[in-house]
């Protein structure tokens, strides 16, 4: 079982939308934000996230939980905005009535009339003076916990062949469907990281060993593989993996 965001390897998608110049050469430059509303949607998502009411795994899961029809039809930042609104309501930072009020004001062109002159900032609100400091720190997912990795570099492993989230039906996971039930080799161990399958559901950080696992292209795609020589590497948490004799 999977959701639409889990699209690695699927058929049907066309050419990559690579920007080109008049001479049909690939262009590297693209504006950071194509439209002003992209920049605003992106920035309010970051700023609302900084209120501390949810973590990155929760926000990813909310995007993934958009109804398939919407997920397919929404552009990138429309997905962000829709998931943000659902989060704001669920976390009771805004109410549905407030949302409806502002939406109708936006629709009938009166929204600028309801902008407050005197705004009292919430104590959690991210201030401009703290932006560089907070960005520079980021949100590290490594945790210094005393958990030893079960697997060694070079060990052969097989991935779970169903969604490994055992707590929540249809819950968040970072094991893509195309790499389920496949044999790979441990390429590296990357310390212990917050486990998204739990963290996305308010079940705690539960830091666990994270490995980079290398899969042969032919193991993932069989005879469809473009080259028997190529490989695909994924970063996978220990519960996604089962041991195999070398």
């Amino acid at each position, binding site marked *: 079982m999977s959701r639409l965001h889990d699209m690695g390897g699927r058929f049907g998608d066309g050419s990559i939308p690579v920007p080109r110049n008049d001479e049909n050469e690939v262009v590297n430059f693209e504006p950071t934000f194509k439209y002003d509303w992209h920049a605003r949607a992106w920035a309010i998502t970051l700023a609302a996230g900084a209120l501390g009411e949810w973590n990155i795994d929760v926000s990813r899961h909310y995007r993934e939980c958009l109804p398939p029809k919407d997920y397919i039809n929404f552009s990138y930042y429309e997905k962000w905005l829709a998931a943000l609104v659902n989060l704001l309501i669920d976390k009771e930072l805004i109410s549905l009535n407030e949302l409806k009020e502002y939406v109708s004001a936006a629709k009938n062109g009166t929204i600028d009339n309801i902008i407050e002159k005197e705004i009292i900032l919430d104590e959690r609100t991210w201030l401009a003076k703290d932006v560089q400091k907070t960005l520079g720190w980021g949100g590290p997912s490594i945790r210094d916990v005393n958990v030893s990795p079960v697997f060694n570099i070079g060990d052969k492993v097989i991935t779970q062949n169903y969604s490994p989230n055992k707590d929540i039906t249809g819950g968040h996971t970072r094991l*893509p469907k195309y790499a389920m039930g496949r044999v790979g080799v441990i390429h590296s161990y990357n310390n212990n990281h917050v486990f998204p399958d739990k963290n996305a559901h308010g079940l705690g950080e539960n830091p666990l060993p994270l490995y980079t696992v290398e899969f042969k292209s032919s193991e993932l795609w069989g005879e469809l593989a473009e080259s028997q020589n190529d*490989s*695909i590497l994924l970063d996978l948490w220990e519960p996604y993996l089962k041991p195999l004799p070398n």
Partner: protein
Amino acid sequence: MIEKKKIADGHHHSHDHAHSHLPSDPELRVKAVETLLLNKGLIDSKTLDELIDTYENRIGPKNGANVVAKAWVDPEYKKRLLIDATSAIRELSYQGRQGENMVVVENTPEIHNVIVCTLCSCYPWPVLGIPPTWYKSDEYRSRTVREPRKVLLEFGLSLDPKVQIKVWDSTAEIRYLVLPMRPKGTEDMGESELAELVTRNSMIGTGLPKEIK
């Protein structure tokens, strides 16, 4: 307990489709949500401006290009970069959000690396900025793991069949940067001149550095 689980698994039954109340025009949608959050004091407009200015003008692929150029001229730096990319990149004051755990993968005559995020749009912000549209597209996300050679051809990159492609799918919080091969004939060039040759796509693996004429 039942109620808690409903929320936990993302099935918001009480207000299942709060987002469906948004207007169809995305500009109005953003305006409505932004104004509401501003009025409630939950976001500050100066913070939004600072964020947008930072990624439009200060953090972008020039940072990554400086890292690559330094690795090309300084073998000791390159060694540090390949062993502990996060620390080596921090030496140039690039760090933080979406680059907390960096790994640099080196292209050689035998191996070509390509970066993708099939599940969302993970990308090393401190060194490359906000991802371009194509990186976030369904087409790139779905096809790159299955047919990387066809995908690279669309970027104008034709690889010898003997070269091994390694596709790195960013499924966790590790962020990847490709160290491309230094172009031929650049032996006399300094770090800042070399940085001009490093394209964004060459650091994702969908391109090569510019060649000197």
